[in-house]
């Protein structure tokens, strides 16, 4: 029975590794690291974590975009890694500067590698998410640790029995994999799941990559030398939302004149969603993401 075991979740390293041991996985489920030293006065670089086997492989010189900030110099994946390891305080990382510098960098390049830029965007989305968690008073998110401390888990089956069930299910899956119904590959079985969900920044980032890939085929124009400010683009988006009521997230980015416009619009939308000014909802049936301004609910009225 579970009382023989420590019911606290063991961090990923100790148990069998979860299927995707990815850098994004470290945000929760990890035991908090001991209080960390303040951000270093000199920029951290790849050398600072050279002895850490989990650190991202250093990029070949001249490859990929390098961030230059007072607190950090190096590629974005390294920055994320250090933040997650609590070696860098996220408060010291100004996202708007990273975005602006990145746009300048894009402008100076003659060729745009969509895969590479998409990767940058995904990491930027993670960064914005991490930062949003620390900056804003958020809705209370359930903390498994809190629950673990306060509850008794005696009613739970021991892991051996759960594993026996998993074996049984594996056999059933094997059996079932040879049987085809017309819904196997057709529409998923209709169930009572909610078809509309608020989307995460990552859904948005993913959609955006898809868009960029499509757009690459139609040769996204790259206009050089045109300055696009985040503030102006934010105003433009809010104005569009006010006049049109609702925007299709991808369509809106699609309408943008150039890749830079689309990138800036993407970051602005992320910021607006993060600040809870804008609500993004995905209609899973058609996989479109709709965006609209959140409104204060009108005062209650008697029915």
């Amino acid at each position, binding site marked *: 029975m579970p009382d023989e075991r420590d019911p606290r979740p063991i961090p990923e390293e100790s148990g069998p590794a*979860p299927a*995707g041991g*990815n*850098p*994004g*996985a470290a*945000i*929760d489920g990890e035991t908090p690291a001991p209080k960390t030293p303040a951000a270093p006065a000199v920029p951290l670089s790849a050398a600072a974590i050279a002895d850490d086997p989990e650190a991202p492989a250093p990029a070949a010189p001249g490859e990929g975009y390098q961030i230059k900030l007072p607190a950090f110099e190096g590629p974005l994946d390294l920055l994320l890694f250090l933040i997650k390891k609590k070696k860098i305080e996220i408060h010291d990382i100004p996202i708007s500067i990273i975005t602006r510098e990145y746009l300048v960098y894009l402008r100076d390049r003659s060729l745009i590698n969509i895969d590479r830029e998409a990767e940058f965007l*995904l990491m930027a989305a*993670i960064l914005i*998410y991490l930062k949003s*968690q620390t900056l804003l008073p*958020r*809705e209370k*998110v*359930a903390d498994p640790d809190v629950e673990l401390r306060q509850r008794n888990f005696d009613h739970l089956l021991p892991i051996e029995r759960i594993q026996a069930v998993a074996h049984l299910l594996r056999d059933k899956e094997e059996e079932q994999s040879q049987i*085809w119904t*017309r819904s196997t*590959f*057709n529409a998923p079985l*209709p169930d*009572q799941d*909610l*078809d*509309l*969900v*608020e*989307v*995460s*920044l*990552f*859904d948005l*980032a*993913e959609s955006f990559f898809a868009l960029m890939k499509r757009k690459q085929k139609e040769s996204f124009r790259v206009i050089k030398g045109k300055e696009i400010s985040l503030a102006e683009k934010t105003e433009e988006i809010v104005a569009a939302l006010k006049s*049109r*009521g*609702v925007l299709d997230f991808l369509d809106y980015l699609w309408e943008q004149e150039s890749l830079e416009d689309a990138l800036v619009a993407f970051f602005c939308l992320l910021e607006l*969603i993060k600040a809870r000014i804008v*609500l993004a*909802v995905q*209609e899973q*049936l*058609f996989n479109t993401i*709709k965006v*609209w301004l959140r*409104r204060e*609910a*009108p005062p*209650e*009225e*008697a*029915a």
Partner: protein
Amino acid sequence: MTDNLKSVIEALIFISVEPLTTDRIKEALPDAGEAEIEEALRQLIDDYANGPQAIRITPSAGGYVFSTKPEYDVPVRALLQIERRKKLSGQALETLSAIAYHQPVTQAEIAAIRSVDSTHSLHTLLENKLIKIAGRKEAPGRPLLYRTTDKFLAYFGLDSIDDLPSAEELKKLMEQGNG
């Protein structure tokens, strides 16, 4: 061999989303000869046509599909009617979500969110008691306000409207898959 070929083709016709053409059968079964396939198909169609089954194989759009025999038209229609009533359309769901997140809300506001007319969806939702009228808005024309009902919560297995997963909670899950 022909019997087996017949059965294989039967399985293929059954599983194909579109009417299955002989060309596609040939592609999937490169070892079978064209004449053999034609013959097996002919027999298969006969077997079902003359057999006790309620379904048969019919030529359609240059290929073959399973369909119900015409004598079962009435009960089939009855069932389809029932199934249609039981499932909310994508339109209705979209309207419902707009109401869930913005309630109490007027039809004009829903229209602004969805960019399409929601009159029909509102009727369906009211009829199914997933939404209710909750007074009028103090605005020109005093439009009706809509709210979700307890049945809405039950339908989606929620205890209260606050149980709709928050962006943060979804994010926590989602980043694991995308990171």
